[in-house]
């Protein structure tokens, strides 16, 4: 590549960028360009096995510059933590795990080895700094990779610290690029570099292009840009304004998404309570622990099927429903059964139950948090554009919440059980007179509410700690949601959960996390003054006692 241009560009860079280059070792790379040769490359390979990170960094710089055929796979393996070396003679190997065995393939000389342990081999360790260097070096090599995702990742990596070297490479490939998204990103990068051009027309063109980009680099470039005249200054300011306006709009959309996702967590945690407390009138202080049991069920399922993390969460949903549901039925049959008509006593007894359940879990699983792995398909984010991304797990939880809800409504409205549950909750004696086995219905209803709490636990296990205190952190919020929505009204619970979530998230950027929560609580208190029986009060005579 033409060295002179690079240096000219470096000279023109703002001091800030210069500092950055100094730091990332870009400049030493330029200076060290003369000392090439096979011998030093050999040494570089060897240096990778060294303990010192700075030696490894030098080696990577050298290897990346040589751009030999080996460079790409080695750097990739290194980044993925698959690059090993034999402790005997320090030759490099790439590790591949095959059904419990470790296969070591030599990079240069040596025998391929497959064994049960990693004995005799040591990993080439990397740190943050090396990882950054590797990413950048790989990105340059990946620009023409056949995989679209890798190409896009490469451009985005380069966009983080755009430089003229990358720009030159991109200029070569941009016309060949077929994917529009990648092309847009490439053009943004080119525009960022173009902004550095001494030619005012070029600058104008660049500003116009950047104004349409949401990439942070575009905004940063425009902010750092020093316009030579007022016309350009105006143009640049307008561009910044435009970008900021769009970003603000997307930020608002993001806040609503955050609110809905928090709301769905709240609603999910509360739905079970809406049945045990709302429909049956049991002040169920053990509700949180039933959620916790669902979360632990997910953990156990993952222990049982470590090879299939992907579907473990799906399996966990019915499993948690059954486990929590059975525990709930056991609680109903042994304790709550004796307390109907004495709702406040249920508070007392279920509080006792919650202490016992907490301690049981603590005794079985230890007080330590357990780790639940997020499956691949649920991690990461759905990138709508460069400033708005919706995380998949939150997205699925919103959907899950709605699905649970619809299923529950169907059960309550369309099945015999639902009919009987409503009958018993409205008038127990009359229902019994009509031939409803109220005791069975009670047990099943409580089991249903508990089972749903268990399913909420599956969702929570993917977001937060799976530990003995999991339940306690959701019980108060759950009661708030049910009461705010109106006791006995399932729709009320959903609407209440969602609106509290959105209110909380809208307040948060303005008031901070703590104050937002306090304000939400004050809002609930005041709201109840206005509507003493919640959003959707239960009507009819049954509500009057």
């Amino acid at each position, binding site marked *: 590549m033409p060295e002179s241009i690079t240096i000219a560009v470096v000279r023109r860079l703002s001091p800030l960028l210069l500092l950055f280059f100094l730091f990332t070792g870009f400049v030493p790379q330029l200076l060290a360009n003369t000392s090439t040769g096979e011998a030093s490359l050999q040494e570089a390979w060897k240096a990778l096995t060294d303990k010192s990170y700075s030696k490894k960094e030098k080696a990577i710089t050298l290897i990346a510059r040589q751009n030999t055929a080996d460079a790409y796979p080695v750097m990739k393996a290194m980044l993925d933590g698959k690059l090993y070396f034999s402790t005997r003679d320090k030759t490099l190997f790439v590790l591949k795990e095959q059904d419990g065995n470790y296969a070591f393939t030599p990079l240069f000389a040596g025998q391929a080895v497959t064994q049960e342990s990693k004995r005799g081999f040591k990993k080439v360790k990397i740190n943050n700094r090396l990882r950054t260097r590797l990413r950048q070096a790989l990105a340059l090599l990946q620009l023409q990779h056949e995989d679209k995702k890798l190409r896009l990742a490469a451009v985005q990596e380069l966009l983080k610290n755009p430089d003229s070297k990358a720009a030159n490479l991109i200029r070569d490939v941009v016309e060949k690029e077929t994917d529009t998204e990648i092309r847009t990103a490439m053009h943004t990068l080119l525009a960022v570099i173009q902004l550095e051009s001494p030619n005012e027309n070029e600058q104008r063109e660049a500003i116009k292009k950047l104004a349409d980009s949401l990439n942070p680099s575009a905004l940063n470039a425009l902010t750092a840009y020093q316009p030579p005249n007022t016309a350009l200054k105006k143009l640049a300011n307008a561009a910044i304004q435009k970008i900021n306006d769009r970003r603000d709009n997307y930020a608002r959309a993001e806040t609503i998404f955050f609110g809905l996702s928090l709301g769905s967590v709240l609603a999910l945690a509360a739905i079970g309570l809406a049945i045990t*407390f709302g429909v049956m009138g049991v*002040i169920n*202080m053990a509700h949180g622990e039933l959620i916790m049991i669902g979360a632990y069920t997910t953990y156990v399922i993952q222990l049982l099927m470590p090879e299939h993390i992907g579907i473990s969460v799906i399996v966990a949903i019915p499993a948690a429903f059954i486990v929590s549901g059975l525990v709930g039925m056991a609680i109903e049959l042994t*304790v709550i059964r*004796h*307390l109907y008509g*004495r*709702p*406040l*006593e249920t*508070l*007392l*007894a279920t*509080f*006792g*139950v*919650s*202490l*016992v359940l*907490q*301690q*049981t879990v*603590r*005794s079985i699983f230890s007080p330590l948090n357990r780790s639940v792995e997020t499956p691949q398909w649920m991690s990461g984010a759905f990138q709508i554009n460069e400033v708005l991304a919706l995380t998949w797990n939150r997205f699925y939880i919103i959907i899950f919440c709605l699905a649970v809800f619809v299923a529950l409504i169907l059960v309550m409205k369309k099945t015999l059980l639902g009919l009987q549950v409503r009958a018993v909750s409205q008038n127990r004696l009359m229902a019994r007179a009509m031939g409803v086995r109220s005791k069975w219905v009670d047990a099943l209803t409580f089991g249903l509410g508990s089972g749903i709490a268990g399913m909420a636990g599956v969702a929570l296990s993917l977001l937060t700690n799976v530990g003995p205190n999991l339940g*306690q952190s959701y019980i*108060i919020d759950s*009661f*708030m949601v049910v*009461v705010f929505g109106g*006791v006995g009204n399932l729709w009320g619970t959903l609407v209440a959960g969602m609106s509290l979530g959105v209110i909380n998230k809208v307040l948060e950027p303005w008031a901070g996390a*703590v*104050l937002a*929560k*306090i304000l939400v*609580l*004050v809002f*609930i*208190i*005041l709201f*109840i*003054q*206005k509507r*003493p*029986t*919640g959003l959707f009060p239960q009507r009819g005579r049954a509500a009057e006692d």
Partner: protein
Amino acid sequence: MFMLDLLRNDKPGSWMLATLLVVSIAVPVLNLLVPEGSIFHLSTYTVTLLGKYLTYALLALAADLVWGYLGILSLGHGAFFALGGYAMGMYLMRQIGERGVYGDPLLPDFMVFLNWQELPWFWHGFDQFWFAALMVLLVPGLLAYVFGYLAFRSRVTGVYLSIITQAMTYALMLAFFRNEMGFGGNNGLTDFKDLLGFDLRADSTRIGLFLASTAALAIAYLGTRYIVSSRLGLASVAIRDAESRTRFIGYRVENIKLWMFVFSAMLAGVAGALYVPQVGIINPGEFSPLNSIELIIWVAIGGRGTLYGAVIGALLVNYAKTYFTAALPEIWLFALGGLFILVTLYLPKGIVGLRRMREARA
């Protein structure tokens, strides 16, 4: 004479007061006069512990007044307790004066620590005991008044009322956790030195606090007993059992509820104020909704709507907790949780209900 009248129909209450009297004589004697080696010596640890239990008993009494006789299940009584405690704690903090670790004559340590330049306005006046004592009553009272005024006027009842009291204490807990609030954040107020000039670590001061707690409990018991035996008390029981009917007869239900609620909150505040110098710390954890639920459980275990039941319940549960946490540190929650379940199932009227059940059988 009047007192005797009041107690004539309250045998258990009389016994309780008599026990309190005996204890208030025996404890100082056993602690201060009996030499340390003797097996009759009562350690200061036990005295402080008993003092703490008594303040809990007072708190339970306050909760029983509104729950047992008015039907208001307050899940936020811990908030009034904590507010009373904070008022006392602020007085005790101001008493430290120059003896804090930074030696600042005006600012408490935690403020120096966080770079505060001047005393926030709400800390003024707390260097005077009378002011702090007034605040112990006024702050919880005022909160209860405002809260009750809104809630009772809007006719919020039942679980809705319970849950918004819980929301209240939860919001206060979060607020007091904030360091910007100026109440010491999570660490709360601690490292107290003396109260009215008496060294808090002296055995005699502890005995004094213990006696004050005993006296407060006895007086509060007589006061609440007087209220529940008066016309006001009868009206409140009527409200508990049939609120609408009482209203239609012509009682101002809102007012009765409001004043009982405020009185109860003030009692809780006094309990908190006595609690803090004995345990030596007040922090936002006292606002925790779980604490408020627990205190309702004391009342339920003792026996709701009897006043003395609340006292017995508080003493018993807390003794059990102290005992279990030391004797069965690993599994005490099983024991405590099991106790709650069994009492609910087999003693629906609480422990004092045992006697009533037997009387009914006899």
